[in-house]
């Protein structure tokens, strides 16, 4: 069993995984009038008749305004009828000319975004002329039908609806409110989420919302007595759980995009014990508003085939803005270690942010803009998704440069007179983040998760900025361990422990790194220290016990391991890994039927549990159920594509099924992952020989023997290949070498005799 159990602390910042901005839901899109957004409608010329509602203006309003401005929508009033538009004409004129509406901050030409809400110059001029010339109705019968909006789920009945524990009541007045509402995920199985729809309960007061997946329910556990009412605060900082599982999606809700539909192959995941945190920005309306937020989730049975990642440029450590400073600049940069497609960005600051720039400098010196906001406004913040993925090759340097205005002239300044402002969680503190959603591309099959390289580069950069940042140090060590650089990882964890000597979690992670580096005694000691420090049922204690039990399985101490796993199930929350770990202990002890039961239970908890899938595959293969074994091992590899054992085992199964090219592919994947494993090269040689590829087969066998010269079978096989090729002398010495190692090697003896007879 090979599952990793390393800890990674997420630095979710303001974010959560946020969703992509998504096309408007079907019911709205269907009702859209002719003329795509942003395109000038066929209006009259300056010299012609005045524009009319029916012919010219209604299409613009229906395309750009009514997704929010309808009865029950997020906009404060409806603009669905001519009468509505006439009533609000002075405001429409004002806000379209000032570009306050529709809300869109990025400067055109600096990042090519999808779903641009900015009104085209021609539409803007049209609206102005319509109002200046007296809001003419025109031929009412010729007006396009108004779009239909209703309050039902846009995508039909969700597979699961989550509710807040208690409705939150927003006071009638006062400053804006930033609140984190916690919605526990109640299911006992893992699900992949292809779409999410949020009904905040009072859309008119919700400016925007970020949804964060709290993998370890850390925020709920940190507020045991009052989490039901929500936790105040603008930024979130939660624990990302115990696997390398970076936040990957922008789950960002804004009023006109209630449903967040993920691209094909990129669902996100919820595990038992996860919480969703709804991080909302609320604007009091004048009367108390009750938010009874609901989140609708739509499942897909298919795990992701593309794994994006969120990363941030940020210099919160430099945010120390003197009172009155109107041009305070922070900058950050990060060199990409792998090729990526950038899918979206989320610039974020609080009230003092003014000019926000993000760009990329390619290795060839070319500059590509990510985003430029010239007059930041927190009220209109958004995630921006690129129209086409923006490809950036490895070696590209990402830059951010944010300018803050802490003068009295900045109307958004929360302090009058201005005061010194530093980074912090309250809205009157500041932040400076540029989040990017990146998807590694041109990745090597079977290589470690390329996102680990990004994580490593990101955390190294953060440590350059703030050398004492323990979270970065911890994450760096975890990223190293995830790439199999265990000795380096152990060193970084040791450095981390110098800062926090008695942290059970870091000790557990250190133990895992030591274990990976082959230092079993040290690993045992580290786990032991962690268990002694932690309370029996706390998460660090549970993980140390899990790792110790797993160590038992790995070292064939099955009885002890079984005892540990059963203790774990009694004291700690049941999870798939513990069940499959127990299964592995039972399987090791030869209790196959009992083991299979545990693996099946594990799969009920998490259908993608690698250990259960892999071992059930092995059980099936041993029982001669080859087809079934192939299916299970294929699923296991979907759950963990970088498992050399699963590749190797699947190759053997394919070979039995006479699927030799498939077997060869699996062994090559295994060899790429563990190039120093002699057995893999030896097996590959056998498969190649069976396929008639003698030269390749010979090369692989030589490679295997170079790695393990004491393999009598290998020398025998090499001799057989040489003999078939007519190289008698070389064959003879190979057989003799086999017999030197194993004097009673029957096949080598027989081969040598046959060779002698041939002459």
């Amino acid at each position, binding site marked *: 069993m090979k599952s990793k159990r390393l800890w990674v602390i997420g630095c979710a910042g303001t974010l959560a995984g946020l969703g992509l901005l998504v096309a408007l839901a079907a019911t709205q899109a269907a009702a859209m009038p002719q003329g795509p957004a942003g395109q000038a409608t066929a209006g009259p010329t300056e010299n012609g008749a005045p524009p009319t509602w029916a012919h010219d203006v209604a299409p613009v309003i229906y395309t750009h305004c009514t997704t929010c401005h309808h009865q029950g929508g997020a906009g404060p009033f409806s603009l669905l009828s001519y009468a509505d538009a006439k009533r*609000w004409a*002075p405001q429409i004129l*004002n806000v379209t000319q000032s570009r306050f509406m529709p809300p869109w901050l990025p400067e055109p030409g600096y990042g090519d975004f999808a779903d641009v809400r900015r009104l085209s110059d021609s539409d803007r001029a049209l609206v102005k002329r319509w109002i200046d010339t007296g809001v003419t109705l025109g031929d009412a019968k010729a007006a396009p039908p108004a779009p239909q909006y209703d309050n039902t789920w846009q995508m039909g009945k969700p597979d699961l609806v989550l509710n807040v524990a208690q409705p939150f009541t927003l006071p009638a*007045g006062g400053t804006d409110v930033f609140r984190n509402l916690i919605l526990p995920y109640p299911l006992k199985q893992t699900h992949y989420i292809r779409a999410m729809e949020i009904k905040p309960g009072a859309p*008119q007061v919700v400016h925007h919302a970020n949804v964060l997946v709290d993998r370890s329910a850390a925020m709920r556990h940190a507020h045991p007595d009052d989490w039901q009412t929500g936790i105040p605060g603008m930024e979130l900082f939660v624990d990302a759980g115990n696997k390398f599982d970076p936040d990957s999606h922008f789950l960002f809700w804004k009023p006109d995009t209630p449903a967040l539909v993920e691209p094909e192959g990129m669902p996100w995941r919820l595990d038992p014990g996860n919480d969703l945190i709804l991080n909302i920005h609320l604007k009091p309306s004048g009367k108390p508003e009750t938010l009874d937020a609901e989140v609708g989730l739509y499942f897909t049975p298919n795990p992701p085939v593309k794994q994006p990642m969120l990363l941030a440029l940020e210099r919160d450590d430099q945010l120390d803005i003197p009172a009155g400073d109107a041009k305070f600049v922070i900058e950050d940069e990060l060199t990409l270690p792998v090729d990526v497609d950038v899918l979206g960005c989320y610039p974020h600051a609080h009230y003092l942010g003014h000019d926000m720039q993000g760009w990329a400098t390619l290795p060839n010196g070319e500059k590509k803009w990510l985003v430029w906001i010239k007059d930041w406004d927190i009220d209109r913040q958004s995630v921006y998704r690129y129209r086409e993925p923006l490809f950036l090759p490895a070696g590209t340097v990402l830059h951010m440069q944010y300018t803050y205005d802490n003068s009295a002239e900045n109307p958004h300044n929360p302090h009058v007179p201005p005061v010194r402002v530093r980074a912090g969680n309250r809205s009157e503190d500041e932040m400076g983040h540029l989040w990017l959603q990146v998807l590694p591309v041109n990745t090597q099959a079977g290589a470690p998760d390329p996102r680990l390289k990004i994580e490593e580069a990101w955390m190294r950069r953060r440590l350059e900025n703030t050398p004492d940042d323990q979270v970065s140090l911890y994450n760096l060590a975890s990223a190293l361990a995830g790439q199999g650089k265990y000795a380096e990882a152990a060193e970084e964890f040791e450095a981390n422990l110098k800062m926090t000597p008695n942290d059970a979690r870091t000790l557990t992670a250190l133990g895992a790194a030591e274990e990976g580096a082959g230092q079993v005694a040290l690993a045992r000691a580290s786990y032991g220290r962690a268990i002694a420090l932690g309370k029996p049922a706390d998460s660090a204690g549970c993980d140390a016990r899990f790792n110790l039990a797993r160590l038992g399985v790995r070292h064939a101490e099955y009885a002890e391991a079984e005892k540990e796993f059963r203790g774990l199930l009694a004291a700690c929350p049941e999870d798939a890994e513990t069940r499959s770990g127990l299964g592995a202990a039972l399987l090791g002890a030869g209790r196959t039927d009992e083991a299979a039961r545990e693996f099946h239970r594990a799969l009920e908890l998490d259908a993608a549990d690698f250990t259960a899938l892999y071992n059930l595959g092995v059980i099936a293969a041993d029982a001669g159920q080859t087809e079934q074994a192939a299916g299970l091992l294929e699923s296991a590899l979907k759950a963990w594509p970088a498992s050399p054992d699963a590749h190797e085992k699947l190759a053997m199964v394919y070979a039995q099924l006479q699927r030799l090219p498939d077997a060869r592919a699996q062994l090559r994947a295994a060899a790429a992952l563990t190039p120093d494993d002699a057995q893999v090269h030896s097996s590959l040689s056998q498969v190649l020989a069976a396929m008639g590829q003698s030269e390749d087969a010979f090369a692989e066998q030589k490679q295997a023997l170079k790695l393990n010269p004491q393999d009598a079978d290998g020398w025998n096989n090499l001799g057989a290949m040489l003999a078939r090729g007519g190289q008698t002398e070389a064959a003879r010495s190979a057989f003799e070498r086999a017999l030197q190692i194993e004097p009673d090697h029957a096949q080598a003896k027989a081969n040598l005799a046959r060779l002698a007879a041939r002459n």
Partner: protein
Amino acid sequence: MRSNSGSIHMKLPVPLAFLMFLSSAMWALAATRFGTDLRGQPVHDLAIPGTRAVVLFFAASDCPLSNRYVPEIARLTQEFGPRGVRVWWVYPNPGDTAEVVDKHNRAYAISGDSILDTNQSLVKLAHATVTPEAAVFVVEGKTLREVYQGRVDDRYISLGQERPQAQHHDLELAITAALAGKPVPHPQGPPVGCSIVFLPK
């Protein structure tokens, strides 16, 4: 909507006798009909005996900025009511019928006195242009003298430009000055909100 004009129309305090004849900013009490209350009864008296100042708050049930000022006006009513200030919620828009306003006032827990300014005479007398906007009158014998007209405070600079909280409470300062018999300061910026829907002339 005035946010871009920057111009502020103020009635400066001028000699009483002069105003009596020339300015609409001073009326004889109980001489005019000031719209109707929510039961449809005409309102004749803006100031009951003992009233020292009258505040008109121009509101619209469907204007979000007007609605956001409900708690602030309620606060000022509570603060200044006991000191002889009568606050009226004036609804000037034709769409704000008794039924609409009644429902709105219940939703926003507005307990103050409301007037439907059906003929927009109060709009004209106060020179109001948007909601939310306020006017302050001091009671001088049987007449009212307008001493302030404009924004409530400086939270909104224009549509889309908002301070996290108000820093300058123009209306409150005006009422305080009026009660103290001191010169009433001008508002320091234009009112921001929704245009009053004017009746056809």
